[in-house]
Structures are given as C-alpha cells and as structure tokens.
C-alpha cells in the first residue's frame, strides 16, 4: 500500500520534472537580463498578469466565453458527425449517397473558409461556433463510420441468432463495438476544436482568449499574450484528461484500458 503510493508520487514527479526545470531556467534567464522582457517576459511576470486579469474578472469572462464557443461547436459538429457516421455505417444507400461527398469536403482545410464565414456571419458568435463545428465534424464522422463498419459481423450474426431486436443490436452490440474508434475521433476532434477556436478568435472577435491575446499584442503586453497561450494549453490538457477519464469509464472492458492489477 505504502509502496504503491510512493510509486504513484514518483510517477507524477517524473511527468512534472521537465516543465518545472524549464520554468526555473526561463525565470533565471529573464532576471539576469539575458532574455528581452519585451519579447519574452519572466514566468513571474506572467503570474502577476494572471493575478491581475483574474482579479478584474476579465480572464474568467474571456475563458468562459471561449469555452462556451468551443463546447457549442463541439456539440453541434460532433452530433452531426456522429449521426452521419452511424447512418452511413449502418445503411448502404446513405453511404453511397453521402460518403464520397463527405470525403471530398473533408479534404478542404476548414480554416480556408474563414473569409466566407466572415462574409456570412460577420464577427458574430455564430461564425466561431460554425467554424468549430465544421472542424470537429469530420474526425468524429470518419471514426464513427469506421468504428461501425468494423464491428465483427460474427457478433451481429450472434445477436440475431439470440433474438436481439434492431434497437438492442445497435445499443448492445454495434455502438459499444464502435466505441473505441469513436473515442479516438472525439480526442482528435478536441484538439481541432481548440485550434479552430484560437484562429477564429484571433481573426474576428471582441471577446474570448484569442481576442484577449490579440488585444494585448497591440499594447505590447507580452505577459498577457503568454498568459493566453498558457490558458489554451491548460484548457487543451483539461479536455484531454476528460477524454482519458471517459475512455477509462467507457472502455473498462478493453484489455488495453485495464489497470495492470485488474487483470487476473
């Protein structure tokens, strides 16, 4: 018990050694004047900026609005991608009708349509949500479709022999069988979600983390710019951790996701 706790502490320590060392070296370099504070302020300056923007409420407000856009886009684009993936995976006529068009659209870099999006929506909320939705749609579509298609036909046949209804066949055989692939899509989509949002907010916004950093750039507040980047990194990490939990919960049956001691 004591041993395993020690093991865990050392595991965590190993993950954090490198980032902490970089921070220390960076701080020392900035203080000694070796780094230009205008171009790259010390970590402590970023920490002060963090405290300032936290106490005047601007950081929380901007983070909140960015997260809201990200989640809205994810929800809309993810649902459409998931729905299309299931539809095309299960039903041949839909696949014949839709799949090649989707594959063609997928190859257009979604950020290339930004000028069009600005023409359509201006810099309103819809523009950002729309871009995020388009960005996450394809990875989720592809992985859902692929997952459904790759469910072992033997299992589906077994389900039919054992009298499962169409609904039960879907919820108990096809969907869980496709889940590992779907979650890979979700994870990939989360990365695209933040990326798209950063670009969209940097180009056209009047609030959000992207706006905050672009605004700070105009006033040469490098510490705020760095702060914005760090917030993005943390939000990305948070999203990744959440999917990891989701995987561990949803794929507890999968040998690759079982904790070593759980395998007997």
């Amino acid at each position: 018990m004591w041993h395993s706790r020690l093991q865990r502490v050392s595991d965590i320590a190993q993950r954090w050694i490198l980032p902490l060392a970089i921070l220390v070296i960076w701080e020392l370099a900035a203080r000694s004047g070796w780094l230009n504070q205008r171009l790259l302020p010390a970590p402590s300056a970023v920490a002060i900026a963090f405290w300032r923007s936290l106490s005047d409420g601007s950081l929380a407000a901007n983070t909140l609005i960015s997260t809201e856009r990200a989640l809205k886009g994810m929800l809309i684009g993810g649902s459409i991608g998931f729905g299309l993936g299931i539809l095309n995976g299960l039903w041949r006529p839909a696949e014949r009708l839709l799949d090649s068009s989707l594959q063609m659209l997928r190859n257009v870099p979604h950020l290339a349509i930004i000028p069009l999006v600005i023409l359509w929506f201006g810099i309103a909320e819809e523009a950002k949500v729309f871009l995020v939705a388009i960005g996450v749609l394809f990875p989720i579509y592809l992985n859902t479709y692929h997952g459904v298609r790759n469910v072992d036909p033997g299992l589906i046949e077994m389900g039919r022999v054992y009298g499962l209804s169409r609904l039960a066949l879907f919820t108990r055989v096809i969907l869980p069988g496709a889940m590992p692939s779907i979650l890979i899509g979700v994870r990939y989509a989360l990365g695209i979600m933040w990326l798209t949002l950063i670009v969209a907010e940097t180009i056209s916004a009047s609030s959000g983390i992207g706006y905050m950093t672009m605004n700070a750039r105009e006033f040469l507040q490098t510490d705020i710019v760095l702060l914005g980047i760090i917030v993005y990194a943390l939000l990305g990490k948070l999203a990744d951790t959440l999917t990891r939990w989701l995987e561990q919960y949803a794929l507890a049956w999968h040998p690759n996701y079982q904790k070593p001691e759980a395998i007997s």
Partner: protein
Amino acid sequence: MNRMALADHPKIWPQNEAVSSEEFSSQGLPIRLEGVSKYFGKRQVLLPFDLKIPAGQFVAVIGRSGCGKTTLLRLIAGLERASSGSVFVGEIRVAGLQRPVRMLFQDARLLNWQSVLSNVGIARGRGWQERALKALREVNLFDRAQDWPSVLSGGQKQRVSLARALVSEPDILLLDEPFGALDALTRLEMHELLTRIWLENRFTTVLITHDVSEAVALADRVIVLRDGGIALDIPINLPRSSRALGDAATGRLQAEILRHV
C-alpha cells in the same frame, strides 16, 4: 454414393425412432430436410438431399473443410435460405431465424464490453439474471459472472457461450466446431460437460466437427458429408461410458467413418 444415405440404411430409422420413444421424453424438436440444396452463385455446395433428425437425437456431421457442413448447420438455423427444398423445425417451415434454435460458433462470439453474466443473459427477458446465473452454474463458471470476457481462457469462453445457449432452454442446439480451437485436455473436459448437459436436457443436437473421435464420443449418430451429399449415415450404439480411447468397438467405428470421409 451421394444417394446412399437413407435408402441404403433402412435399419437406421426404426432403430433411432425406437430409441427416441423409449429414452427421449425430451422437449427437443425434430428436424426435417426435404430435397434441400444450396448453391452460392454457380458453386453447388449441397446437392438436393433428405435428412430426418428425430427429437432429442445427438447427431454429429463430419466432413472435410468446404464440404458444406457449416452450410447445412446455417440452413437449419435459418441463417441461410435453401436454394431448393424445405427445412422444417418441428412442424414449422424455416424461413428465417428460429426462436427454439440456439447456436454455438467456432469462436465464442462474446460481447467483450459486457460482463460474463450479461453475455449469458443476452436475450434478457424476465428474471434473466437468475436464469443466467443458473446456466453459469451448469458450466461451472458461477464465480466468473462479474468478470470481463477478455480475462477468460479459450475453454472458459466456450463454456460461457454454451451457458448463453442454455439460458433460453433451446429445443435445438447447433454446434459449429465449437471445440476446434481448444487444446486436447480442455476439449475432453468440454465433451464431458456437453454430454452431461445434453443428458439432462435432451435437446436435439447437431454437432459439426472434423474430428472423428469427437463425433464418436459424443453422438448417437454420425453423418459423413462428401461432395455435397451424405456419404455415410451410421448410428453409434455403444454406451457412452465405454467410448473411451482405445476401446476396440469404438476404434472399428472410427475406422469405418474415416473410410468415408
């Protein structure tokens, strides 16, 4: 040779029916194939043939790979449609999947994302958990009910799939080489288990196998499929307890069957 089947073995029918009326007071259903053939595209897998399996009989079907034995099983299960002729389960003409028919596949085909218990009780329905636990006790896996299938051995997985078939109290059990991938010792254990469960339940059983000794050890009757037809149809009248390896009568039967494969 293909036509040999029933016509050349007039003794089989009276014998087996006598056995079935004395010993088998089963809830098993008879199976009847009339002029059944099957081809995929131009390739003829089964030539038109007749076959009657009385209720409660344990039939083993032997043949080389590709001789159509799995197709025969899938026709009875309603997973394939006959190209000509009819398949009857009980008095009902098969036209799709049959409720009283359950099947064991070559691989266990368990849902890895559900516990052993949920796998066994896959058909759900009223009181499924109790029934699933009872079936697991039958196959000696009561204590593994809450495990994931991925931690089980090959033999245990096939026992789970056997329990899954037992839950719904089938009238007909179809076995498609379910022990083919198991090691010799585990296979012997499975033979014992299957024999015990069959003696208790007396469902009509059709076992596909390529192993002559397995067929002779388990079945009442062995059918050899060759070139799309029945090459041999022979009863096994030895008591089950004396079918051990090395027994002279058993050996003679095995040799006779092997000649026709």
